[in-house]
């Protein structure tokens, strides 16, 4: 039984943490939060590109480091912990994964090396209206290789150079790669709950679109991409949730009330214990997701759902109770608690909300446990 990361992978994780502690302190996250003109931390992005992290799971033949998804999970956890305000998730967990999953050899050769080199920032555009994705929810369409429609929110839509878009062609959903610098693309940044992660409304009006994957495969490919992204996002969520517990723990030891450290009171103590418990479960479920992703196991849909559901709960609980433990100070702009609170929502929504994943999980369980 070896249900753990290797020493090399743990070493990579430690290195990533050290790097981000130096290059991505809370002050840098705040700059992006507070300056609406800043879509991301471009300086940090350039340094992350130089680390080679974008290509961690991209094969060497396509210009990547050729490490693997386990290494990517380690990096993801540290990025989540640091609340890195960069378009890493969109480019790597969604755009690159979609290409590796469904791209033709030509497409892989055209895009993957550029992603690894930091020349492409990718976005994944599916949502058009409130509510979970469904066939009826997709109005965007491609005709004669031209895409029309409106997508919002598109995470990292203002920053991306390219987007993969879910649209109908001939009445059937498919994925399409679009160069966002080309004609027929209009982008407007959106105000969101988490300004440290850019989102945009993109209006396509006859933009050139290149199909990715088979005709009519849009939904099934999207689900497969979401499964992969869910696992990687779960590691960001676990990193964030652990940081919330650390902050709450520290405050509980430093803050005095009624003559004692507030951590001595059971109401606070038990809250921290519950945060710890959820974090333990989330980490364990994320590890299973990592295994399934790394081995392309048949269990991946179930493992991804478990990872996302568990991690979303842990980071939500951790973030909101971290505010609570900090009392009035937790409710200030000045303290970092709300940074995690905001990011916990962004992460929980970006690949579809937990409630949708719970339904997906039960559908899989029904299939696996057929009567």
């Amino acid at each position, binding site marked *: *039984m070896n249900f753990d990361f290797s020493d090399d992978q743990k070493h990579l994780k430690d290195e990533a943490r050290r790097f981000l502690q130096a290059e991505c302190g809370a002050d840098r996250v705040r700059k992006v939060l507070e300056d609406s003109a800043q879509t991301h931390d471009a300086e940090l992005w350039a340094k992350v590109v130089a680390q080679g992290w974008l290509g961690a799971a991209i094969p060497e033949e396509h210009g990547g480091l050729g490490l693997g998804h386990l290494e990517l999970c380690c990096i993801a956890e540290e990025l989540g912990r640091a609340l890195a305000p960069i378009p890493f998730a969109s480019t790597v967990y969604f755009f690159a994964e979609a290409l590796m999953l469904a791209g033709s050899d030509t497409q892989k050769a055209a895009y993957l090396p550029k992603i690894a080199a930091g020349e492409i920032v990718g976005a994944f555009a599916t949502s058009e209206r409130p509510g979970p994705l469904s066939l009826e929810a997709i109005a965007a369409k491609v005709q004669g290789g031209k895409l029309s429609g409106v997508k919002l929110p598109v995470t990292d839509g203002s920053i991306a150079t390219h987007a993969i878009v879910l649209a109908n062609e001939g009445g059937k959903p498919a994925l399409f790669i679009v160069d966002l610098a080309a004609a027929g693309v209009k982008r407007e940044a959106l105000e969101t709950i988490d300004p440290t992660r850019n989102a945009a409304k993109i209006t396509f009006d006859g933009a050139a679109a290149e199909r990715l994957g088979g005709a009519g495969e849009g939904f099934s490919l999207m689900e497969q991409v979401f499964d992969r992204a869910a696992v990687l996002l779960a590691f960001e969520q676990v990193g964030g949730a652990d940081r919330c517990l650390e902050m709450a723990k520290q405050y509980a030891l430093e803050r005095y009330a009624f003559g004692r*450290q507030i951590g001595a009171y059971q109401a606070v103590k038990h809250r921290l214990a519950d945060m710890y418990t959820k974090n*333990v479960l989330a980490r364990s*479920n994320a590890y*299973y997701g990592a295994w399934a992703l790394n081995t392309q196991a048949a269990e991946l849909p179930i493992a991804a759902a478990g990872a996302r559901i568990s991690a979303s709960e842990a980071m939500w609980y951790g973030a909101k109770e971290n505010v609570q433990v900090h009392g009035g100070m937790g409710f200030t702009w000045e303290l970092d608690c709300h940074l995690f609170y905001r990011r916990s929502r962004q992460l929980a929504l970006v690949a579809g909300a937990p*409630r949708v994943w719970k339904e997906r999980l039960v559908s899989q369980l*029904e299939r696996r446990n057929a009567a």
Partner: protein
Amino acid sequence: MDFNDSPEEAAYRAKVRGWLEANAPKGAKGASLGDETDDQLDEAKAWQRKKAEAGYAQIHWPKENGGGGGTTLQSVIFAQEEARVGASLGGPFAIGLGMCIPTVIATADEETKKRFIGPAVRGDEIWCQLFSEPAGGSDVAGIRSRAVKDGDDWILNGQKIWTSGAHYADYGIVLVRTDPDAVKHKGLTMFWIDMKAPGVETKPIHQMSGSSGFNEVFFTDVRLKDSQRLGKLNDGWNVSIITLMNERMSVGNRVGEVGGGSLSLLKLAREVIGDDGQTMLTEAALREKLADWYVQSEGLRFTGMRALTSLSKGQMPGPENSVAKLVMATLAQDLANYAVEIEDQFGVISDPSVATSKAASQNTLLNSPGMRIAGGTDEILRNIIAERVLGMPADIRVDKSVPFKDLPVGR
């Protein structure tokens, strides 16, 4: 990262699987701890003896203590294989081998060790643990059973409660007060006791679930020899810590079944028809809860695997497993109640020949309150996680420096 055995583990697993296939009792019917019938006890004892003779009882103990001289992980592998063939009959011996005998090993003289270790490992003798009293459950150090010196002997009077298996135990370890003038933690002593000694009376506790696996044990002028003392006089608190540490380390089949009880709920939901003519499994609210419980159960299962991985590497598992009972007990209670509720009016039926799943949900519903209390209440477990794992300061104790006899008592 993988779930495969290492080559050594795989070879060991194949070996024990072969042995079990040839030797394990077929069609054994275990029971919950304390509820075993005489026949079930006999079957359990016979199996324990057989395992001991082959070196498969207490595999992780050294051979000089009757064990197999193997590793903790080998113990786990054997337990998994044993469960696989439905031969997990070690319940009656778990307390003795997991807590009492390790305490004896840590504190007793050679003669005592020699007398007790072998028979316990072979299943010839069963032990119980006599700590909790009406006066102190969570507050273990608040116990009142009193041993008074009488020459070289001690005379014990008092009462213990919630003693699993006392009705069939041969021996026990008992924590008693030997100095009421000292502060409460410094006036306790541990002894081993013969459960058949004159003055020891066991009465079953009628639990809210209807069964009686737990007991009260009354001591009326029970004579203990000073040679029965385990550890130093008035140092019983430290001895009890040894016992409880061993409880925490006692290794069983750490990794439960896939999905815990949630898959039973799925099966039940598939059978029960809702008010729209469809099975309850089509109901959105149920599906959401099912997903939550499945994910929680799997989180526990994977946490157990992380612990096994540490063992596999020869390391002590981290504190993550401390969440197991805390999560499991409430999960079991909530899930059982949910199952009972989806059956609607029918859910009250507990006759196993009429109820669904032989009334499993009804049983769990009535037993689960005990799971949230026994072996560390939910509240104590949260205190332990917060204090020992997260480093929170201890609560104020108003009784630590007061002579025991001066402490206030309530109900």
